[in-house]
C-alpha cells in the first residue's frame, strides 16, 4: 500500500505534467537526450537524499526554522553532485553548466521537502522522492529525445535521420519556443489520457 507514494509520482502526481513544478530546468535542459538524462539523474539524486534527510531530522527541527534547514540540506547535496560531476563526468558538467547549482531552487525538491518529507517517515519519503524523480526524469528525457531528433536528427549524438531531413530540420525545436510547444502537447496528451478532460 505504501508503494502508492512511489507510483503516484510517475503519472497521477507527475511533478512536471500534473503538479506543474520544476518547469524551468525541464525546458532549459531538455535540448538533447543526453543533457536531459544528466539533469534528470542529478536532480533525482538531490531529491531522494534531501527527502530522506529532511524526514530523518523532522522531529528535532523547530517549525519556524524549517525552511533554512531544508535549504542547507538541499544545497549540500547539490554541491556534492556538482563536485562529483566535475570530477567524473566533466563533459556532462560543461553541458549542464549553470543548471547544476540551480537545482537548489528547483521547486520540486523544496516542494517535496515541505509537502511530504517533513510530515512522513523516512521510508515513505524515500519512496516519494524516488517516484517524483522517476516522473521528472521520464518527462525531461522524453522531451530531450523528441527535441534532439526533430532539431538535429540525432539521438544521443548518433545520426538516426536521413541527411535530407537533417539539412531541413525543425531547428526551432532546440530553442525555447520548441520547448514550450512540446510541453504543451505532452500536457494535453496526459490530460486527455488520465484526467479525462
Amino acid at each position: 500500500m505504501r508503494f502508492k507514494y512511489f507510483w503516484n509520482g510517475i503519472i497521477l502526481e507527475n511533478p512536471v505534467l500534473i503538479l506543474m513544478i520544476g518547469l524551468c530546468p525541464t525546458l532549459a535542459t531538455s535540448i538533447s537526450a543526453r543533457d536531459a538524462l544528466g539533469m534528470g539523474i542529478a536532480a533525482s539524486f538531490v531529491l531522494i537524499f534531501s527527502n530522506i534527510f529532511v524526514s530523518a531530522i523532522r522531529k528535532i527541527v523547530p517549525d519556524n526554522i524549517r525552511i533554512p534547514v531544508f535549504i542547507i540540506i538541499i544545497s549540500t547535496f547539490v554541491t556534492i553532485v556538482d563536485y562529483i560531476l566535475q570530477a567524473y563526468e566533466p563533459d556532462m558538467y560543461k553541458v549542464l553548466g549553470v543548471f547544476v547549482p540551480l537545482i537548489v531552487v528547483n521547486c520540486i525538491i523544496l516542494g517535496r521537502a515541505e509537502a511530504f518529507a517533513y510530515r512522513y517517515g523516512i521510508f515513505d519519503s524515500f519512496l516519494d522522492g524516488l517516484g517524483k524523480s522517476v516522473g521528472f526524469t521520464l518527462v525531461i528525457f522524453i522531451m530531450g529525445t523528441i527535441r534532439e531528433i526533430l532539431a538535429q536528427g540525432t539521438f544521443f549524438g548518433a545520426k538516426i535521420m536521413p541527411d535530407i531531413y537533417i539539412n531541413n530540420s525543425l531547428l526551432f525545436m532546440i530553442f525555447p519556443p520548441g520547448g514550450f510547444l512540446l510541453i504543451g502537447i505532452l500536457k494535453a496528451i496526459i490530460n486527455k489520457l488520465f484526467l479525462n478532460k
Partner: protein
Amino acid sequence: MRQILVLTFVCVVSALLLSYVYLFTIPKIKEHKEKFFTSALSEIFPNIGGYKEVVKDSCYQILSEDKTRIIGLVFRTGEKGYGGIIEMFVGIDTLEKVCGLKIASPAEGLKETPGLGLKIREDKFKSQFLGKIKEQIKLKKEGGEIEAITAATISSKAVCDGIRKGIEKYKKYLREK
C-alpha cells in the same frame, strides 16, 4: 535556544560532508582541466620543448625544442557569441601571426546553434585565420579578411573579436623572458 542548536548542528554536518567530498574530488577536477589544455596545445604546436605559464590559466609561452627561445604563445580567450561565451585557444608565432586555433566543443561548453553558429568549429571557417595578423582578423564587411558564416554573423564576429583582443592583450609576452 533549540533553534540555534539545530541550525548549528545541520551546518556542521553539512560542512564536514562537503569538505570530505571536496578532498577526494579536487585532484580529479584539476587533472581534467589540465587535459583540455594539453590537447589544445599539442594540436596547435605539435613539436615543442616545453611551455611556461605566464598568466595563470590563460597565457603560455611556447619554448623551442632546445628550450632556449620562445617560438610562440598560446592563450585562452573568450568572447560572447550568440548562445554564450565562445571559448578558444589561440596560438601565435613570433611574428604575431595566428598559427593555430582550437574552439571548445559543445561538450566543453560551446552553446552556439547547431547548423549555424556551430559551424565556427569547421575547418573551412577556422583555416581562414591561419597566417593572419591582428589587423586582418575582422569580418569582410568590417574591412578585414574573414568571410563570415552565412546566417551566423554574431558567432563569426565573436571569434574574430576574441582572437584580436587576445593578441592585443598577450603579445607583449612574446618578447619578455
